[in-house]
């Protein structure tokens, strides 16, 4: 598990509107890459294009190449549904399925796809995933309770468990802590540190301290003005970005001097 992601001259459009322009980026396997930048700079759009989630908006399309270990994700015969099975995603707000128990939420990826599995296999998957999400000890006695009864932080870890239960290669996180309190945020950040042993992680965050704490690499996106496309300004090791970035714009942003 843990594959590399590579974008080559990637343009992302909504209809005729160019949202993100000319992204060239290589994400190494089993690393954490943080994407930072001002609101509307296209970092979330880029993240969603990696597992083709942005295609749910009518008119969305891309130009250029996006590869997962050399395999073209936008090839002519590639099913976006298949892409999403290899690249999992965690969202801004925790979104467990309200009709399902904690147990069923974890194995939702298999259940919803009618994958046949024995009871013991499912039990193993649930325990492995919940342990992997640092949630097992808190919920092991109430696996049959609805997932929506948990606290916000627990729900978000349940969503992470759900995402890793299908054993993806890459895990995308779209501001996973923005709806959580500081203690839950810390728990998620610890978890990200453990998850990178197995998965390639790309995380969008508004919080620069968080990017500095959890990531190995950081990419800075910027936008020149409203209506202009977002661009990847700089991608480098996190400590380089935060100590001696090559671009003036990056330095302004990370030091809080952003216009």
């Amino acid at each position, binding site marked *: 598990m843990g594959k590399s992601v590579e974008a080559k001259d990637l343009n992302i459009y909504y209809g005729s509107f160019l949202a993100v322009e000319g992204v060239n980026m290589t994400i190494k396997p089993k690393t954490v890459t943080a994407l930072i930048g001002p609101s509307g700079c296209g970092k979330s759009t880029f993240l969603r294009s990696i597992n083709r989630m942005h295609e749910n908006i009518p008119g969305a399309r891309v130009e250029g190449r996006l590869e997962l270990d050399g395999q073209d994700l936008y090839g002519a015969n590639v099913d976006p549904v*298949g892409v999403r099975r290899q690249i999992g995603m965690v969202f801004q707000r925790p979104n467990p399925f309200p009709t399902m128990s904690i147990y069923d939420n974890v194995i939702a990826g298999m259940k919803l796809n009618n994958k046949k599995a024995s009871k013991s296999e499912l039990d193993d998957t649930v325990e492995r995933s919940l342990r992997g999400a640092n949630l097992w000890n808190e919920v092991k006695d109430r696996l049959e309770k609805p997932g929506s009864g948990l606290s916000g932080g627990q729900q978000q870890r349940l969503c992470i468990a759900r995402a890793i239960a299908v054993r993806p*290669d890459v895990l995308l996180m779209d501001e996973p802590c923005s709806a959580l309190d500081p203690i839950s945020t810390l728990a998620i950040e610890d978890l990200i540190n453990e998850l990178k042993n197995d998965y390639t992680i790309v995380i969008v965050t508004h919080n620069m301290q968080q990017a500095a704490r959890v990531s190995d690499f950081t990419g800075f996106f910027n936008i020149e003005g409203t209506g202009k496309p977002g661009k990847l300004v700089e991608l480098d090791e996190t400590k380089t970005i935060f100590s001696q970035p090559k671009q003036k714009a990056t330095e302004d942003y990370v030091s809080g001097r952003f216009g």
Partner: protein
Amino acid sequence: MTTTEVKSEQKAAKPVTQLGDRIFAGSAKGAGIAILVVLAGVASFLLIEAFPAVTAPESELPGGLVAYVGPLIFGTLLGAVIALVVATPAAVAVALFISHYAPRRLSQGLSYIVDLLAAVPSIVYGLWGAWTLAPLSVPLSNWLTDNLGWIPLFAGPASTTGRTMMVVGLVLAVMILPIITAVAREVFLQTPSLHEEAALALGATRWEMIRMAVLPFGRSGIISGAMLGLGRALGETMAVAMILSVSGAVTFNLISSENPGTIAANIALQFPEASGITVNVLIASGLVLFVITLLVNMLARYIVERRRDFSGAN
């Protein structure tokens, strides 16, 4: 290990999932198109069946279609307008009572009862109108024609059976009252509490708060509820068919035994025994009714759309 297995399985399953999506999306779209086809069918079949009535010779249809349908249109509008005039203020008062005057616990039960009454079948209202209200109305009609007979509406002579346009209008009002109330109540309850609190904070009494915040906010809701009720009253068949004694006269006299019929009731009364050109004439009159209710609905939509910008709801 497991990963590679999963991958190969996905490759095999891929075309199947796409097929599933295509079938499902296709049938959903098909259902939508089916509705359009049905509606086109409604229009065209009615037109085909109504057409012979338009071209019918004078010998088969004395006076022509217009002379036949005209009084019925008059009766339909008259009954529905009476119902609307009586029911709307009452419905607004009931809705206000439920939303702003009744104790909270009582108001929940009351809204439930109102919803239930909106679902009572029209045959029940018809029986009640013919059995209970019509005899009860006779003394009132006599009093009206004795004391207010100079108003054309109450010119009399009062009907002795009570099967009058006034009773029809009142029964229709009772029928549409729960419908208008249900809509108005929902809108009143949605008045932003900020608006209400702002009014109260200015020192307004409850009535002033309602006048400043609730009624302006709910105006479009009242109108659309009233139009919904009007549509129901125009199309109501059984209650009218069971109550009204029809002579075909075109008159505003509400309490005599000389009354115009309504389109819907006329169809219900004539259709089971009709044959030949009469069937076509009745279907043509049904089309006219359809057009009238359509116009009312369009008007309601137009009013609501136009008012929306001013309602303060965002």
